[in-house]
């Protein structure tokens, strides 16, 4: 029978490499100034879905919401074996918090009516772990968080959940949404043949940009859009077109999207300024270490 799976993935700034220069004045992150990577636990979510397809058949569709640059993680997903990639991109989705994001994703997932949805447990840029549970709530799917092992049997899933101080085995009814831990599996690497084939996969927004480049400023908008349509249809025949949806395509209510749909607002952003030099320094020598330890013993901190 097989299971139709949707995997929600996110392109994230590599937070280990953030610098102050990557911040905009309003306190939001200038993502363009940062290296962008596949959110690590979303790779585990993708792997889990691919395993389901390997074992039971079905399909794996990957969805990313974000700027056109998020096509990079969609292509990476295709290299690793996903069947289809969908980009949700729309300026009106900017400034969405987790509630608005989960609403937008729910509109897209609902169009696909999958049996299973996989999300990484959390993304490294916000660490909130909120979008998975909120998406399940909006879809009315069974939520199973912190997945480490999955077995499917008809309309039921048996899952081992990592609950921090131990584990839990549960039996859950499908359709279900799973948030996947990094400990669940080792994501397979991109496959060479798939990479060779799918490296040319493009979303319409990327094709339009390429057309702009080749036709130049002198070309009329009509000529440009005709050329874009021609190239898109060409890609479609080669099965290399990344599906692109905006908020209208997924019939999202704009009141629940972007800033308007986000109940949380930024009140204040403070850059971290540390008052340095306000500590007692000891040299890294035998006598330095001895006098430091002596001081700590003297005041009964140690000993």
């Amino acid at each position, binding site marked *: 029978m097989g299971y139709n799976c949707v995997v929600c993935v996110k392109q994230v*700034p590599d937070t*280990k*490499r*953030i610098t102050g220069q990557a911040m905009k004045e*309003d*306190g939001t992150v200038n993502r363009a100034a940062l290296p962008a990577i596949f959110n690590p636990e979303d790779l585990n979510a993708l792997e889990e879905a691919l395993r389901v397809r390997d074992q039971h058949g079905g399909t794996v569709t990957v969805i990313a919401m974000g700027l056109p640059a998020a096509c990079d993680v969609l292509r990476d997903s295709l290299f690793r074996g996903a069947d289809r990639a969908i980009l949700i991109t729309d300026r009106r989705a900017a400034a969405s*918090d*987790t*509630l608005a994001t989960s609403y937008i994703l729910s509109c897209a997932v609902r169009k696909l009516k999958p049996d299973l949805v996989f999300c990484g447990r959390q993304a490294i840029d916000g*660490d*909130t*772990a*909120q979008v998975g*549970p*909120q998406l399940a*709530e*909006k879809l009315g799917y*069974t939520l199973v*968080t*912190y997945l480490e092992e999955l077995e499917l049997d008809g309309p039921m899933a048996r899952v081992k959940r990592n*609950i*921090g*101080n*131990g*584990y*839990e*085995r*549960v*039996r859950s*009814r499908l359709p279900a949404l799973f948030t996947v831990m990094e400990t669940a599996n080792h994501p397979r690497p991109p496959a060479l043949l798939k990479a060779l084939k799918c490296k040319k996969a493009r979303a319409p927004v990327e094709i339009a940009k390429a057309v702009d480049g080749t036709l130049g400023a002198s070309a009329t908008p009509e000529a440009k859009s005709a050329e874009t349509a021609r190239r898109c249809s060409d890609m479609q025949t080669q099965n290399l077109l990344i599906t692109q949806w905006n908020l209208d395509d997924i019939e999202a209510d704009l009141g629940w999207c972007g800033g308007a749909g986000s*109940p*949380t*607002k*930024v*009140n*204040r*952003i*403070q850059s*971290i300024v*540390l008052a*340095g030099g*306000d500590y*007692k*320094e*000891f*040299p*890294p020598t*035998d006598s*330095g*270490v*001895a*006098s*430091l*330890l*002596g*001081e700590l*013993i*003297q005041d009964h*901190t*140690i000993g």
Partner: protein
Amino acid sequence: MIEVNRKGEVWVFAEQEAGHLSDVPLELLSKGRELADQLGVPLAAVLVGNKVRPLCATLAQHGADLVYLAEDGVLSHYQTASYTRVVCDLITAYKPQICLFGATAIGRDLAPTVASAMKCGLTADCTDLQIGDHTDAQTKEHISKLLLQIRPAFGGNIIATIVNPHRWPQMATVREGVMRMTVAEAGRTGKTIKFPVNLAGVDLPTEVLESQRRAKKVNLKGARIIVAGGAGVGSRDQFRLIWDLANILGGAVGGSRAAVDLGYVDHDHQVGQTGTTVRPALYICCGVSGAVQHRAGMQESAKILAINIDKDAPIFGVAHYGIVGDLNEVIPRMIKTIRSGASLSDAVTGASKA
């Protein structure tokens, strides 16, 4: 979503498992008490489970004026669907202004689901909560006495203060250990309000087959001395130095998130915003650069000693003592000095003369 209710109470979700409260709801009650007093509203605990009534007294002693008690056999084990239904019904009935949850495995499952169902905002892993004012950047609308939800973000280069001005309740999760628990007041009592559980139409999609819990191997919260290592330690093998120093001092071993991510030390040892928050008498951090998430978890330690090769490392900004040097040389020197009583007693004498 409920309308803005200025008379609304401050709520704390009283997470319990098998009739035992963890520390985090009691810590949240301490913070909730401050917030409720500033707002001039009652503080309530929300207690959901089966046969959990005896916990009401503990919650009152830790500051709750009221306990909303929802008991049912079906609620004996935490399940997303049933607990979400009960908490949402309670919120709809009583319209609290603030709801706080522990950022535990359960809290991080329940709180976002409740927020989604109530269509309100939620801020994860707050390191501080305050009452304050907010002016909207675009509309210039000024709103007073909102919950300021404070958390580090984006790799720790910024501290963000988040508010939830219009769509209430204002919800936040807080990690265990972040808020300081006040001592229980033995004579303090509160009112218990029994809330009728109505799970009609909720057929539970999940069945718990097996549950295994282990006591945390590491007791960081209870340790007087913690020796922590960061990415600068270099490898899991070299982390042995951290263990050796902790052992000789009778302390516990901690690690920064970077050290845990690199596999130098297990997650149970992680100190910081997404790990454990600690306040030992002495915190020795070795090769820890001092990202704000780490500092959020240790900066209230009584004494902080930073050992780092980089004199500009942010960790020195919160340190009381510092050694700028290679931890591979400094730590063995410390161990040697502690082992050799003689030179240490000289040092003590030296220090007392100074």
